[in-house]
C-alpha cells in the first residue's frame, strides 16, 4: 500500500496548508520580543504590536488598557483565523478541527459549572468563555446537578458526548468532583484524539502521535505535582492519568505512588525524553518551573512539525504556537504593568 499523502493531500487540503504556513511566518520574532520587553507601559506594548501582524487589533479598546483586554482581543483574532480554516476544511480535516476544539469546550463547560457553584450569572461567564470552545448548548450547562444530568440534558448532542463514559457517577458537582470531571473528560478526549490520529496513519500519525503522547505524559506529571498535599487520594489520581503516552503502564503506576518531587523525578529518569527536562528544572524560586520546561519542549515539537508536509499536524502546531505567543505577550504585559521586571525574560521565544 502506497503511503501516498503527497499524492492526495493537496487536492483537499493544499490551500489551507499554504494558508497556515503563511500565518506561521507572521508569528512574533525574537526582535519583536526584545522590543516588547523594553516597553514601559501597556500603551507602548499596543504601539509595538501594531507593527507586527496583529495590526490595529486594540484600536477600538477604550482606556485604560488592561492585560485581560489584550488577552481577549488576541484570542478573538486566533479564533477568527481558526474559524476560517475550519469553514474551508473538508473531511477528515474537519473532524481533526473538531477534536482540537473539544479541549476548549471542556474548559468552558467546567468554567460554567464552577460559575453555577459560585452562583454567578450565566451571561457574565459566557462572555469569558474561550471562543474556540463555543457550542450552542452552553447556556444550559449550569442547570445540571450531577454528571449524568449534565450528559443527558445538555451535552448529548455535542462532540463531548463520547468522553463522558467514565464520568457518569451520581456524585453531586462540588469542587473536588468538578476537578475530577475535568481531568477525566480530558483524559477520554486525549485518548480519542490519539486513536483518531493513529488510525489516520501516514505523516499525520507520525507527527501528531508523539505530540499527543507528550501531552498525556505532561498532564500526568502536572496532576501528580499539583496533587501533593491535597486531599486527592492516590487511586483517584491514577484514574486521571491519560494512558496514551510513553509512561503507560509502568510509569503511570510508579507515578501514582510518588509522594514528592524527587520521587517523581526518579520516575522520569527512566525515560530518555523526560530525564533532561527534569534536569533543567531549577530549584526553588530561582530557575524554571516544571511547567516552563514542558512548555519549551512543546514549542520545540510544534516547530519541528512544520518541517514535514502534507499532514494535519501543522494546524495543531500553529494553534499551539499561537497560544504560546499569547502567553508570552500576556506575561510581558503583566510584568510591565506590575513593574516587576526581574523575570520579564522568562517567555519562551518561538
Amino acid at each position: 500500500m502506497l503511503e501516498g499523502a503527497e499524492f492526495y493531500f493537496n487536492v483537499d487540503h493544499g490551500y489551507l496548508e499554504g494558508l497556515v504556513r503563511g500565518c506561521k511566518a507572521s508569528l512574533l520574532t525574537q526582535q519583536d520580543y526584545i522590543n516588547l520587553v523594553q516597553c514601559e507601559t501597556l500603551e507602548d506594548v499596543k504601539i509595538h504590536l501594531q507593527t507586527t501582524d496583529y495590526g490595529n487589533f486594540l484600536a477600538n479598546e477604550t482606556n485604560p488598557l488592561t492585560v485581560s483586554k489584550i488577552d481577549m482581543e488576541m484570542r478573538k483574532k486566533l479564533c477568527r483565523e481558526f474559524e476560517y480554516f475550519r469553514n474551508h476544511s473538508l473531511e477528515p480535516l474537519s473532524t481533526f478541527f473538531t477534536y482540537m476544539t473539544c479541549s476548549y469546550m471542556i474548559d468552558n463547560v467546567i468554567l460554567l459549572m464552577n460559575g453555577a457553584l459560585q452562583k454567578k450569572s450565566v451571561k457574565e461567564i459566557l462572555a469569558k468563555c474561550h471562543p474556540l470552545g463555543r457550542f450552542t448548548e452552553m447556556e444550559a450547562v449550569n442547570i445540571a446537578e450531577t454528571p449524568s444530568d449534565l450528559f443527558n440534558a445538555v451535552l448529548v448532542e455535542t462532540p463531548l458526548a463520547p468522553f463522558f463514559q467514565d464520568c457518569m457517577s451520581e456524585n453531586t458537582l462540588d469542587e473536588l468532583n468538578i476537578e475530577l470531571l475535568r481531568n477525566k473528560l480530558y483524559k477520554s478526549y486525549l485518548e480519542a484524539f490519539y486513536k483518531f490520529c493513529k488510525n489516520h496513519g501516514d505523516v499525520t500519525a507520525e507527527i501528531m502521535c508523539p505530540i499527543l503522547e507528550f501531552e498525556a505524559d505532561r498532564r500526568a506529571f502536572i496532576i501528580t505535582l499539583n496533587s501533593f498535599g491535597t486531599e486527592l487520594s492516590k487511586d483517584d489520581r491514577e484514574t486521571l492519568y491519560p494512558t496514551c503516552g510513553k509512561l503507560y503502564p509502568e510509569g503511570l503506576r510508579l507515578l501514582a505512588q510518588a509522594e514528592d518531587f524527587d520521587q517523581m523525578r526518579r520516575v522520569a529518569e527512566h525515560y530518555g525524553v523526560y530525564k533532561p527536562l527534569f534536569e533543567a528544572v531549577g530549584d526553588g524560586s530561582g530557575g524554571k518551573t516544571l511547567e516552563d520546561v514542558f512548555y519549551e519542549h512543546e514549542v520545540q515539537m510544534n516547530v519541528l512539525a512544520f518541517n514535514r508536509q502534507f499532514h494535519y499536524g501543522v494546524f495543531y502546531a500553529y494553534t499551539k504556537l499561537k497560544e504560546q505567543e499569547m502567553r508570552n505577550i500576556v506575561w510581558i504585559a503583566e510584568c510591565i504593568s506590575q513593574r516587576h521586571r526581574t523575570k520579564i525574560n522568562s517567555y519562551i521565544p518561538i
Partner: protein
Amino acid sequence: MAAPGLRAQMDSLLLQLLRDLEELEAKRAALNARVEEGWFSLSKARYAMGAKSVGPLQYASRMEPQVCVYTSEAQDGLQKVWVVRASAQTPEEVGPCEAALRRRKGLSRTPEPESSPAPRDPLNWFGILVPHSLRHAQASFREGLQLAADMASLQIRIDWGRSQLGGLQEKLKQLEPQSA
C-alpha cells in the same frame, strides 16, 4: 523644678516615637514586598493555568471571612489590633464580625469541637489541583495580613505618642515663662 523631668520625659517619648516610626517603615516595606510577590505569583499561576482560570470568575461576589480583625485595650490604654483565623476559635470567643460564620449549639462553657463546617480554603476556588505558584501567592498574602495588623497597632501607638509629645511641649511652654 518640673522642667528637667518634663524634658527627660519628652526625650524618652521622642526616642520611642522614632523607634516606632522605624519599625513602621520596615513593616511597610515588608508588606509592599509581600503584596508584590503575591500578585506576581498570581501572574505566574495565570501563565501556567491559562489566563481565565485565575481571575474574578472564580470567586463568589459574597464571601465569608476566613480571618477577622480584633481590637482590645492593652494596659497603657492603647488599642491593639490583631488578626485571628476564624477556624482557630472556640465558640465563646465569637466576635461581632462573625455573625454568619458559626452555628452555635447553645452557649456551652466547655470548648466544643467545630460545630459548623470549616470555611473553605480560598485556594479551592481555583480547583483542587492548583500550581505551586498559587500556593506561594496565598502564603505571601497571609504574611502580609499579619504585617498589616502590626502596622495598624504601631500607627495607633505613634499617633498616641505624638499627641503625648504635643501635650508635654505645651506643659513645658507654660512652665518656662513662669520660671523665667
